[in-house]
């Protein structure tokens, strides 16, 4: 001991005016150190949480991208073309004029628009701007000129098709809606499926975060008891746990974002873009969803930790 008189030298900094009224929490550095130590100490549980969050957010992101895909297809059909009459390249001017007059007079047809080969190519390039492979293999000459019809009643497309198929100068008559119906059904089913699985996975993630907090609160019970004893605020005592969970959630969000980006590159751009005749969602959608899952992962994990703490940490 520094001698019995040592205490007269006690030069502890005076508490701020008004006593120890300073309720400021821990410094960020000290806080982060505790949270990360705790994550490392419970490595197995932390890894399980990160995996569950990653799967959950990847499914959520996939669902969101499927919705983006539906919007992309909707945009593709924005001019609401329901029936397209492709014209023979060799159609004469007279044949075309007669056909146009007949269509305008037809009560089933609400609107008629003529599109020449150059216009068709321009629209095609716009619709498939995210699938350069498709665009590069096609030139203006490959696309037919067409009449694009909007019907008064789309359900009667069949009558139009029978009536105009086989007319002079007509190559074929296509009902685009009918063509797309199965696609819409598949997209919708996949979207619902992805969201449902994401919800189930969110439950699993919550259960794991709950366990992680329990394990961590148990492992750190001595530490939290001391914090309480020396006058740490409730916020300070809880913060490392919330931070621990938020860091795990952020890691899950980063992995999920990486998975979605990889999916866009290897699945969407390399595989589907070659196989499908429809335009696919672009990178803007991927970035928006990636940022979204990162924020949701971090925020939701922190919130879940908060809920779990009410049960496992008594302050």
């Amino acid at each position, binding site marked *: *001991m*520094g001698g019995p008189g*040592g205490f007269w030298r*006690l030069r502890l900094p005076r508490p701020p005016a008004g006593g120890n009224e300073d309720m400021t929490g*821990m410094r960020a550095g000290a806080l982060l150190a505790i949270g990360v130590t705790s994550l490392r100490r419970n490595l197995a549980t932390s890894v399980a949480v990160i995996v569950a969050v990653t799967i959950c957010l990847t499914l959520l992101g996939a669902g969101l991208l499927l919705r983006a895909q539906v919007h992309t297809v909707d945009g593709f059909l924005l001019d609401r073309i329901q029936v397209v009459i492709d014209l023979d390249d060799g159609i004469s001017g007279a044949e075309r004029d007669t056909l146009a007059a007949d269509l305008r007079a037809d009560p089933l047809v609400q609107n008629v628009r003529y599109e020449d080969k150059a216009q068709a190519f321009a629209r095609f390039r716009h619709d498939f701007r995210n699938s350069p492979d498709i665009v590069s293999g096609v030139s203006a000459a490959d696309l037919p000129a067409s009449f694009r019809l909007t019907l008064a009643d789309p359900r009667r497309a069949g009558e139009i098709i029978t009536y105009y198929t086989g007319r002079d100068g007509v190559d074929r008559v296509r009902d685009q809606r009918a063509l797309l119906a199965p696609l819409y059904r598949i997209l919708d089913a996949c979207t619902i499926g992805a969201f449902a699985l994401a919800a189930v996975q969110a439950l699993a993630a919550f259960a794991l975060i709950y366990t992680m907090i329990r394990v961590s609160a148990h492992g750190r019970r001595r530490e939290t008891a001391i914090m309480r*004893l*020396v*006058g740490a605020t409730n916020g300070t005592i809880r913060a490392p746990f919330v931070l621990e969970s938020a860091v795990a959630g952020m890691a899950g969000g980063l992995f999920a974002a990486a998975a979605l980006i990889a999916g866009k590159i290897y699945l969407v751009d390399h595989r589907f873009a070659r196989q499908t005749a429809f335009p696919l969602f672009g990178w803007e959608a991927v970035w928006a969803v990636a940022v979204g899952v990162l924020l949701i992962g971090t925020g939701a994990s922190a919130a879940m930790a908060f809920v779990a703490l009410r049960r496992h940490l008594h302050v």
Partner: protein
Amino acid sequence: MVRMTSVTKSYHSGTRPALDDINLEIGAGEFVFLVGPSGSGKSTLLRLLLREERPTSGVVEFAGRDVASIPDRRVPLLRRQVGCVFQDFRLLADRTAAGNVAFAMDVTGRPRHVVRTVVPEVLDLVGLAGKENRYPDELSGGEQQRVAVARALVARPQVLLADEPTGNLDPATGAGIMNLLGAINRVGTTVVMATHNAALVDTMRRRVVELEHGTLVRDQASGGYEPTL
């Protein structure tokens, strides 16, 4: 500094209360021994002062404030003014002596430069100069208790509560801790020490408050462990 008025504490209704109608006043700068057989309510009395428990009836006042009515949010401020040490030291095994003291300052938001200068200073004051970087399992019991005292001191508490601080120590080491608490008391900190250590109480000749079955049976100015008539 501390005033208890008709304080009763029952942990379970129906059973005999742990504290029964206690009236006690402790002035600033006093040194008080709290004695009594096991289960007489010493720890319970200290826990009321820390707001670990609330009295079933009666009023516990600290520095003029009714402790039970302090809002939960502000209880940490009370605990910074009431330091405490225990028989089992309650140190973190994965932190050094300096780390344990720094932890208490970190979690109460003290700036890093303050922590850096104060920790060695306080460890020096409790007689641990040169042992700052030892882990608890590399320190003797007496040294571990000194770390705990240093940790309690860094908040500059007005009152230091010690619940059987020498309970795990041999007599000579216990006397060393006793001297340390005495020195802390001499610079103005009120000390309340619950103990079974008769020899210490008898040599110190300080105020003695004795509990039995939760009632205050003796309050003597410079008493010994056993009542002297």
